[in-house]
């Protein structure tokens, strides 16, 4: 009896300290289901397809995770994604070296993040509203300067191949960038003082401030990280398609937030990690590919994600409730 309760409490501790476990269970379950229903789901091409989709979304979601743990939101990531990709496309067509265009695209993202951060922190506006505004602002500017037309880059470049070229058959280098981003951000979050500041800022802003943490600075920096990752993801997707249209990235913010929440990160901040987000985006990529391979019309994807999102949040909440008892 004694042993059993001890075991129970260690399992509880494990679940409490590992927000990603719920998403891992979901991932395994969905994987098993699709292995039976989808033909060729277990092939290398199918796996590569899943990882490719998951990587581009995942880099955006990684930034959102960081920001959500800080207790803030960024709805403008989709617009930042499109805007950065467009800068890279336009500068490339203007004959500017791609790496310079890439740096320009990232700088634009940095600026967008800085602006989100400063407006939110300085004027004490909920970031939901700030970034809803900047989402429309940058999307609008994007549509206005392109006149609504897509931009295509006809050249070839080793820089773009590096960003998102093929390797090992169907795999793409975006997946490497994605794993590096997840790995680095998770190390910062879990193993450095800055990670502690980030959790503390999201967990209890006033307490963190009283303990001498520059809460506003942490927030602004994490807004910038989030925006720059969205910009990076935009450039990476441009490297895959060699084209970008002004609506690129629309709706991506919600998909990314869904992946983050499925991964166990709390919307209210202070709790979560990047590993959960990794599982979350893989899960969403898997559902997307798996449904198509099972012969379901692609439209079902959204409906399915909706169900998964809600069940994941309920499960995570219940798990936490149980673990804290």
């Amino acid at each position, binding site marked *: 009896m004694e042993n059993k309760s001890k075991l129970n409490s260690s399992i509880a501790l494990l679940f409490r300290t590992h927000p990603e476990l719920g998403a891992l269970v979901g991932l395994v379950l969905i994987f098993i289901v699709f292995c039976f229903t989808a033909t060729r789901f277990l092939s290398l091409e199918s796996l590569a397809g899943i990882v490719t989709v998951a990587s581009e979304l995942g880099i955006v979601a990684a930034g959102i995770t960081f920001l959500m743990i800080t207790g803030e939101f960024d709805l403008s990531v989709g617009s930042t994604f499109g805007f950065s990709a467009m800068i890279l496309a336009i500068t490339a067509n203007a004959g500017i070296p791609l790496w310079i265009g890439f740096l320009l695209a990232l700088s634009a993202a940095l600026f967008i993040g800085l602006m989100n951060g400063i407006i939110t922190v300085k004027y004490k506006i909920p970031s939901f509203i700030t970034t809803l505004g900047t989402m429309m602002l940058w999307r609008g500017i994007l549509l206005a300067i392109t006149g609504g037309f897509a931009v295509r880059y006809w050249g070839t470049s080793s820089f773009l191949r590096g960003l998102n070229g093929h390797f090992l058959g169907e795999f793409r280098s975006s997946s490497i960038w994605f794993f590096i981003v997840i790995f680095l951000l998770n190390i910062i979050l879990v193993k450095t003082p800055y990670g502690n500041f980030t959790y*503390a800022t999201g967990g*209890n802003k*006033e307490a963190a401030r009283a303990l001498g943490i520059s809460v506003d600075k942490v927030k602004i920096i994490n807004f910038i990280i989030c925006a720059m990752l969205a910009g990076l993801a935009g450039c990476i997707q441009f490297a895959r398609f060699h084209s970008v249209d002004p609506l690129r990235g629309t709706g991506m913010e919600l998909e990314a937030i869904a992946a983050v929440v499925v991964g166990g990160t709390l919307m209210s901040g*202070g709790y979560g990690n990047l590993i959960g987000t990794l599982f979350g985006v893989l899960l969403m990529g898997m559902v997307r590919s798996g449904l198509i391979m099972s012969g379901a019309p692609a439209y079902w994807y959204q409906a399915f994600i909706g169900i998964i999102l809600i069940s994941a949040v309920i499960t995570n909440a219940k798990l936490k409730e149980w673990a804290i008892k």
Partner: protein
Amino acid sequence: MKKDDILVKMVGINKRFGTVQALKNVDFTVKHQEVVGLVGDNGAGKSTLIKILTGVHFPDKGGFYFEGKKECIDSPKKARDMGIETVYQHLALIDLMSIARNFFLGREPVRKFAKVINFLDRKKIDKVAKQALKDIGITIRSVDEEVALLSGGERQAIAIGRAIYFGAKLLVLDEPTAALSIKESHKVLDYVTNARERGLSVIFITHNIYHVYSVADRFTILEHGEKIGDFNKDEVSAEDIIEIVRTGKVPARS
């Protein structure tokens, strides 16, 4: 520094929020190894005074001396660096973070990686947190537990243990016994005595005069932003203090 030397001296503190004069020419001192009860009704200015002392607010007018030196506290970090540690009623700890992480929050011990990157020294964090909490008399199952799981008294203990460990000279406790059970309140009062024995000074802010009376050496009473009384423990009874806070007047001495 000897006992009875003055640790903190605030002179003529004024603070206004919009049209509200929160503090009017308040003088406030804390001696070394002294427990001062800061009492007064809601809106008397207790919190404002403490927030000025801990760098959260900046006074409109007034001087501040710490260990006899004129200082200017312009941020909570500065106050903390000087050795003024605050334990707020609700703000002391981050619920969703582990005990160990909370213990070192803002002052994380680090190991250098490749000479540039600072990594948290997890081993030290866990070991020291556990030992320091044991020293002040609380044992916990694991320092990896989230603070959310702890009782109110245990939270106070962790915050106080943290302050003592980091060599605080002055401990500011804001309503430390509010919302605690009788048993836990008494434990917290023991921690206060414990802290004084270890050489700290304590400012104890509360509505519960009986709690503060059992541990304090001196009482400073505020009313509508002004100091209306300053008494050593042997000059007043707990009932006297309650009467002064209730009426807002110091009765004529017989």
